[in-house]
């Protein structure tokens, strides 16, 4: 007769540790394929861009640790994520010194001044991007073609601009390397300013110009699904954003199909996928309750379409998410679940 052991445990019974560094590490895994595709598409400029922003973010994080006499918080991976995400939102030929400024500004203004991870109101990567959008409006809207020949052996000329100097004109260089008539515009700006629509298949697979990591909507979806399956991301956030975008742009499209883009184009173009999947779903800046998440997602989707169609910029997901982040504390206050047995507030 075999002796049976009964193992007694007090709670918690969770075997696998799912702490912040673990989740963050998996987010980095999920981002790596997107980075790899961006490098394949735009060449070594993007590879160096990712490295520069990540180092800038990590360095700034460490600097503020030192300033506040705190132990190093680099090992929680959150600054690494901010760095990678930031690089993915920048144009491929973005001058590297500006990218470093973006990384420093993102972590310093977006995270460190609030007290580090868990206390930041806004997504640090988007704060960094918003900063350089305000500081260098020309450089951040200068796009370079994808899949140009020699992309693995040479940099985009604007990448290696000396610090504090203006990037050189890339128009001549683009003419040399571009396969066909590259206009230096993303699908969104093409649609908005020139009324040219891009083939849907190109949008899904990322065969278009744009920021380094935003082009392939399908790849981003797949990588995001990995996190959803591992239960490391709240899938409701991107889902509600997609609903918000689809409904808002659908209504506009029904009103005037010639002026406004159709919902499918809206969903798969620009940085929407990347923003919805990896930035809006940031655990710190998003609401807690399902109802709050719904309001948050719909708000971001609605604002994105609004800025894209009526604003002066062709892309609006960045400001939409930042505004969503800003509204999160308010949404959380509104949507607090009623305690069981507590009385409903009489109107």
């Amino acid at each position, binding site marked *: 007769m075999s002796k049976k052991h009964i193992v007694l445990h007090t709670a918690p019974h969770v075997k696998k540790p799912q702490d912040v560094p673990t989740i963050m590490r998996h987010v980095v895994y999920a981002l790596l394929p997107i980075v790899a595709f961006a490098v394949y598409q735009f060449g070594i400029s993007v590879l160096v861009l990712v490295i520069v922003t990540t180092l800038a973010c990590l360095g700034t994080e460490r600097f503020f640790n030192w*300033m506040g*006499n705190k132990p190093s918080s680099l090992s929680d991976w959150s600054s690494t994520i901010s760095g990678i995400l930031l690089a993915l939102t920048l144009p491929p030929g973005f001058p590297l010194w*500006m990218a470093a400024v973006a990384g420093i500004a993102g972590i310093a*203004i977006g995270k460190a*001044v609030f007290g580090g991870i868990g206390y930041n109101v806004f997504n640090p990567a988007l704060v960094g991007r918003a*900063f350089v959008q*305000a*500081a*260098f*409006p020309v*450089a951040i809207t200068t796009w370079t073609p994808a899949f140009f020949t020699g992309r693995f052996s040479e940099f985009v000329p604007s990448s290696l*601009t000396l610090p*504090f*100097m*203006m*990037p050189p004109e890339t128009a001549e260089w683009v003419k040399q390397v571009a396969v066909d008539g590259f206009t230096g515009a993303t699908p969104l700006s093409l649609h908005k300013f020139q009324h040219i629509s891009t083939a849907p298949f190109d949008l899904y697979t990322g065969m278009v110009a744009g920021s380094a990591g935003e082009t392939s909507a399908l790849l981003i979806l797949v990588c995001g699904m990995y996190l959803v399956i591992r239960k490391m991301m709240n899938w409701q956030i991107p889902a509600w954003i997609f609903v918000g975008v689809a409904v808002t742009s659908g209504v506009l499209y029904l009103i005037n199909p010639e002026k406004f883009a159709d919902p499918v184009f809206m969903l798969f173009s620009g940085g929407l996928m990347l923003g919805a999947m990896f930035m809006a779903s940031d655990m710190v800046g998003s609401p807690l309750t399902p109802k709050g998440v719904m309001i948050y997602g719909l708000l971001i989707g609605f604002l994105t379409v609004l800025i894209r169609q009526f604003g002066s910029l062709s892309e609006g997901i960045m400001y939409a998410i930042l505004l969503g982040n800003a509204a999160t504390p308010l949404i959380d206050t509104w949507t607090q679940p009623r305690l069981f047995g507590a009385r409903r507030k009489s109107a």
Partner: protein
Amino acid sequence: MSLIKQDDRITVDTFLEGIWRENPVFVMMLGMCPVLAVTNSAVNALAMGLATAFVLVASSLLVSLFRNLIPSEVRIATYIVIISTFVTIVDYTMQALSQEVYNALGAFIQLIVVNCIILGRAEACASRNKPLKSMVNAAGMGLGFTLALLCLGVVREILGSGSLFGLPLFGEQFQPWVVMVLPPGGFLVLGGWLLFFEWLKTRKQSLAEGVTHG
């Protein structure tokens, strides 16, 4: 005879407190409106700082001279009349000296009237002290305010236009940081300086503690 006897001695600290320990901008956080609005270049910052310092010193003198004549019920109104007299002088003087700077500073010259540093000094210092002491104190405060404005103006001008007092520093190819000459730049640079000074202070404190304990 009042029970509280004012200390009439003028010490070095009377002058220095406005520059460091009670700096109107970085410590007391007063007069934020001109600090944020006109510091987009070093010249504007300097002009604004000097204008405010002049009004501060002159009105402190006058308030202090009249401190026993002004009825306490209407003292604020009286201070405002005194201050606005000097603001009008500054306004016309600046218009005569440099129309360009005058235009750049815009309404903020006239708004020196409601600058809370000046009213605060009149209320807290000039109305209770002898003329010379209040003038020394006001001069320190004015200098502290000017230095604080310069701190912001220099950073914003170097990054925002690549120049200092109008002289280009980086040459033709400089990439200006547009955001630095816009309002957000004012907030960011002010925050940066506040962080820096606060950090210096806490560091000094912890070093001092370290010495006594160790």
